[in-house]
């Protein structure tokens, strides 16, 4: 539903959800400073803004997770105040929160129907019915996963699709999605859009948050832009160009944000001649078949593949966080002990993991402590940590990566997603690594920050680091990588070089590569 | 009883044998026919002994050792269990011994109530039960059990009161270090003591009653607190020797002389306490004799021989004070 036609102008359409003058602050941080938001039936409404602009906070206020400090909420014309998320859900607002918020220890089917399990006689949960429903639902949505699988055993992308499936399967009047596509492949994104179109046809209102600009223009009818907790623009989508949107978001003049291409990656890099990192025959039963790859100094190697193709498993294996049955990993010709994170780090291989919440941040520690965490032994003498050296490192990286925090002592879980991601990057750059593995490094970060991260990756490669980049954003992958290894079902099936490094190249490699099942 | 102490080899005192004070506290005796059990030859019998608390203090150690030694002497095969202060476990212990074919049970009850299920099981199997050291209060002798052999704890408390009155001259402020709450030994030793004071030593005023849990450290800590809050305390009645020994240390660290500035009377008669009397730290100790083996087996033998057994057999407990401590210390356990 790009800007237009089938979406005849409908200022007349009923306003389902309206927020006015919403304020919300956390200990010292003003996340929302008087925001108005109006959602009409049947529209797909983009909510955009930089990291930390207040999008998620607004969503949480709308759905009863937080109580606003000030402001009013109207739902279907009547003033409301949701005391708990359950209340909003009962009223017909269903939400996919940022970062997967499901129960990892339960099965996919359970997660889909928690709280509204189908029941047979005597009020007992009807498992057979539930599984059947789940199978139908998943198939209907084109999600290929066994509903009996434990959710936590699945990759983040699949989990995200399950969360979406849960939200849209509820019979809701409003569906809110906070960055549902941050871990999704083009194929899944397309599935999701198809879903949104169906919702639109049912006159359901959708709030859609994403940092991927092209998605917004593809699917949204209206847009609300937040900046620093304030409303800076609200209107139909077609009135804006991409550049205008970015400039409104960032609050910088058009001339400044004009850029070439869609990503901030430069051209190819000068690469060394001998491999910095070489991995051969990495395999683990049921997870990885046979993965071979190598990175030269100054090279950005892309890992391509579909959801669950084993990219995350591969990079985890490289840093010893995933044990292997076989395979050799060498850095500068020296073999790294398999399955040992310590020896991988010693050899200079580091990983910025995909699941920031579960694998990245230590939530209750400060930004400073999160940054220096891995480097602690280097910053101490005889086990005593030097505060001065810590502060120096922290100051350097907070500036270099433009980390936005009230102070280095702010708790990291109070930062917006994008800034948390930068903290992760800072943690590993402080280790001066040789090989940097980035699993979805721009997941959930805003255009500005994305560009910063991308150019940072470029810089690092220029400085001679070997980089492995995993990204489900195909464009990012293709523009960022000098070479791409394509994985399928846990095995490397193709290596794309030079001109083969293109969206089509990756697509066709995935389609052709390997023995089909 | 929950006394404990250290050093001495339990049961070593040659003169520590239990002596019967009274047989029968009224009521008829019990004979083989009345109780309705079969005659057993003790020298070939399987005898079960259910101990109530861990063998982690002199009283329990001496008690178990005495019964084990006597069983060996008589020639009976003894199976032992320990309830570890858990009433439920004591019931299953007893049932387990019945399952293993015990023909006579000697039981040191953990509590004066609550053994009914075990006693019922014994009755159904026609196995006589001799209870020792703690008396069952509502169970009926010659029906639920054969007889009770042990001390009279109320009387121990009364005698402690008597001793206290003697060493203080009948005047002063007394602090009581109670045993564990809910334990009927605690209750009895308290009521006997208080009754005596009310009746015969009105000059002794009880100013504090705090639990020391029958433990030395707790006795020490509680005494320290009490002495500071009530500098006027002149005497301490500890319901077992361990708490008394803890109190001695506490009195000393308060800058007073135990045994002189503050009189201390306790119950049990462990070696350490009697030595404390010799050293002048304690003033009197009322004995609670744990050596039940010989008397228990004698009673069983008499019972099987057709004699009538009295429902309660109260043993004669000694008492120690400065006059006899030196001479009697060898009898302490």
């Amino acid at each position, binding site marked *: 539903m790009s800007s237009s036609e089938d979406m005849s102008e409908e200022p007349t359409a009923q306003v389902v959800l309206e927020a006015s003058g919403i304020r919300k602050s956390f200990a010292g941080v003003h996340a929302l400073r008087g925001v108005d938001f109006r959602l009409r039936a049947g529209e797909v409404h983009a909510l955009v803004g930089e990291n930390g602009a207040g999008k998620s906070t607004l969503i949480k206020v709308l759905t009863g997770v937080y109580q606003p400090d000030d402001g009013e909420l109207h739902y279907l014309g009547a003033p409301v105040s949701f005391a708990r998320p359950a209340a909003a859900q009962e009223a017909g607002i269903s939400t996919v929160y940022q970062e997967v918020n499901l129960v990892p220890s339960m099965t996919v089917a359970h997660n889909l129907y928690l709280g509204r399990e189908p029941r047979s006689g005597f009020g007992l949960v009807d498992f057979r019915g539930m599984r059947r429903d789940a199978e139908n639902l998943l198939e209907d949505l084109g999600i290929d996963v066994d509903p009996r699988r434990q959710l936590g055993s699945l990759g983040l992308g699949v989990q995200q699709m399950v969360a979406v499936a849960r939200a849209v399967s509820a019979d809701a009047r409003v569906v809110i999605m906070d960055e549902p596509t941050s871990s999704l492949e083009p194929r899944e994104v397309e599935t999701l859009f198809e879903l949104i179109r169906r919702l639109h046809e049912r006159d359901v209102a959708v709030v859609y948050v994403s940092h991927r600009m092209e998605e917004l223009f593809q699917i949204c009818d209206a847009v609300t832009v937040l900046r620093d907790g304030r409303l800076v623009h609200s209107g139909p989508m077609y009135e804006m160009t991409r550049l205008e949107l970015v400039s409104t978001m960032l609050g910088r003049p058009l001339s400044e944000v004009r850029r070439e291409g869609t990503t901030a990656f430069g051209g190819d890099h000068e690469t060394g001649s001998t491999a910095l990192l070489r991995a051969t025959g990495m395999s683990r039963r049921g997870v990885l078949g046979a993965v071979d790859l190598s990175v030269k100094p100054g090279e950005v190697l892309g890992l391509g593949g579909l959801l669950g193709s084993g990219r995350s498993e591969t990079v985890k294996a490289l840093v010893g966080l995933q044990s292997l049955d076989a395979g050799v990993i060498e850095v500068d010709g020296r073999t790294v002990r398999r399955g040992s994170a310590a020896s991988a780090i010693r050899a200079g291989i580091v990983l910025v993991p995909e699941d920031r919440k579960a694998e990245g941040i230590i939530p209750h520690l400060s930004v400073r402590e999160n940054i220096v965490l891995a480097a602690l032994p280097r910053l101490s003498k005889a086990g005593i940590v030097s505060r001065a050296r810590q502060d120096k490192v922290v100051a350097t990286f907070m500036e270099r990566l433009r980390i936005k925090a009230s102070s280095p002592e702010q708790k990291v879980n109070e930062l917006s997603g994008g800034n948390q991601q930068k903290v992760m990057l800072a943690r590993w750059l402080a280790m001066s690594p040789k090989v940097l593995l980035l699993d979805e490094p721009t997941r959930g970060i805003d255009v500005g920050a994305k560009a910063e991260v991308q150019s940072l990756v470029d810089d690092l490669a220029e400085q001679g680091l070997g980089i492995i980049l995993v990204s489900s954003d195909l464009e990012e992958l293709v523009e960022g990588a000098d070479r791409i290894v394509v994985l399928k079902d846990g095995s490397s099936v193709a290596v794309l070089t030079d001109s083969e490094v293109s969206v089509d190249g990756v697509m066709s490699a995935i389609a052709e590569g390997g023995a089909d099942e | 009883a929950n006394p404990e102490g250290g050093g001495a080899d339990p049961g070593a005192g040659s003169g520590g044998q239990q002596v019967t004070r009274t047989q029968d506290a009224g009521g008829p005796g019990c004979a083989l026919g009345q109780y309705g059990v079969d005659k057993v030859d003790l020298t070939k019998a399987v005898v079960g002994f259910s101990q109530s608390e861990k063998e982690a203090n002199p009283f329990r150690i001496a008690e178990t050792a005495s019964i084990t030694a006597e069983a060996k002497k008589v020639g009976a095969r003894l199976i032992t269990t320990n309830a570890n202060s858990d009433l439920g476990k004591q019931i299953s212990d007893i049932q387990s011994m019945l399952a293993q074919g015990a023909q006579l049970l000697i039981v040191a009850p953990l509590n004066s109530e609550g053994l009914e299920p075990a006693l019922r099981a014994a009755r159904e199997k026609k196995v006589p039960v001799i209870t020792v050291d703690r008396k069952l209060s509502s169970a009926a002798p010659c029906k639920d059990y054969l007889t009770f052999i042990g001390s009279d704890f109320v009387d121990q408390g009364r005698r402690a009161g008597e001793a206290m009155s003697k060493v203080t001259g009948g005047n002063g402020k007394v602090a009581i270090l109670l045993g564990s*709450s809910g334990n009927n030994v605690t209750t009895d030793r308290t009521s006997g003591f208080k009754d005596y004071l009310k009746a015969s030593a009105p000059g002794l005023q009880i*100013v504090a009653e705090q639990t020391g849990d029958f433990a*030395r450290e707790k006795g020490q800590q509680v005494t320290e607190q*009490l002495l500071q809050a009530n500098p006027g305390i002149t005497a301490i009645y500890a319901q077992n020797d361990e708490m008394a020994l803890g109190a001695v240390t506490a009195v000393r660290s308060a800058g007073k002389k135990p045994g002189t500035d503050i009189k201390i009377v306790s119950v049990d008669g462990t070696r350490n306490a009697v030595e404390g009397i010799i050293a002048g730290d304690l003033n009197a100790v009322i004995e609670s004799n744990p050596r039940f083996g010989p008397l228990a087996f004698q009673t069983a033998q008499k019972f099987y021989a057709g004699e009538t057994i009295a429902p309660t057999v109260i043993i004669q407990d000694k008492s120690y004070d400065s006059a006899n401590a030196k001479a009697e210390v060898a009898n302490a356990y």
Partner: protein
Amino acid sequence: MSEVTAGIRPGSRAHLVGLARDYGVYVALGLLVVVNLAITPNFLSVDNLRTQAVQVVPVLVVALGMALVIGTKGVDLSVGSVMALATAMLPMYLGYGPVVAVVICLAVGAAAGLLNGSLVAFIGVQPIVATLALLVGGRGLALVISGGQLREVRNPEIRELGAGSAFGVPYTVLVAVVLVVLVSLLVSRTTFGRQLVAVGGNPRAAEFAGLPVKRVLLGVYVLCAVLAAIAGVLATARLTASDPSRLGELIELSAITAVVVGGTPLSGGRVRVLGTVAGAVLMQLITATLIKNDVPASVAQMAQALIIVAAVLVQRERNAS
């Protein structure tokens, strides 16, 4: 020990709530002192203060170790048994001199900690059960070793450690103060301390950050057990007897309570050492108040329960809403 939160107006409600949360235990402590000044005879005497200080030492030292374990999201139920087990060695080795004997006690403590730590770190047994096994077995072993008997300690150095003092401060209290300082430095200034907190905060992320998670866990349980052994030696010195059947009974609950009342959350990721000290002192003062005023055991227990819950209620984390 409080984390200063930037940007809150002093005097505002949020500010006061924040203060109560951070300093709740000190507020409770202050209140209790005031109550005692009013109702307890001779409360404000040097002797009394010394008594309270001396009595709190074992629980405090154990609580220091417990705070570390709780910081890693664990718990150690075996501390009381470790105290008993370690000090059961004391009378046996005093013949080689007090230093050797004490070192052996601490070594036994460390061995117990290694057992706990290995079960938790390498096998992945849940801390509460791993340490429950030693709680059950450890005291039994101590009793087996000592023949079930309390043993008098007559060694003059050990007795002096328990009863003597320097500049009017008892040695045991001095030892505790030194340990408090050391543990607080350990937590705030050393790599180990910071890694410990990170492991408690998010073990998976700590592993991904390349921290030696297993070694940290192992170290924490060893430290906790060694501190328990030290507490055992101090308590034994003061009692002038090694009492394996009763020493440290139920101390795990007092220690956990002190830690939690002192503001360290059981969910891990944070350790408040001074709060723990205050928590232990608070518990000690509650006991002292109840004993000194001759409150019966039944009422004392109920009062204790209410005070504990109230103290924790004051300093609970504010809800998200």
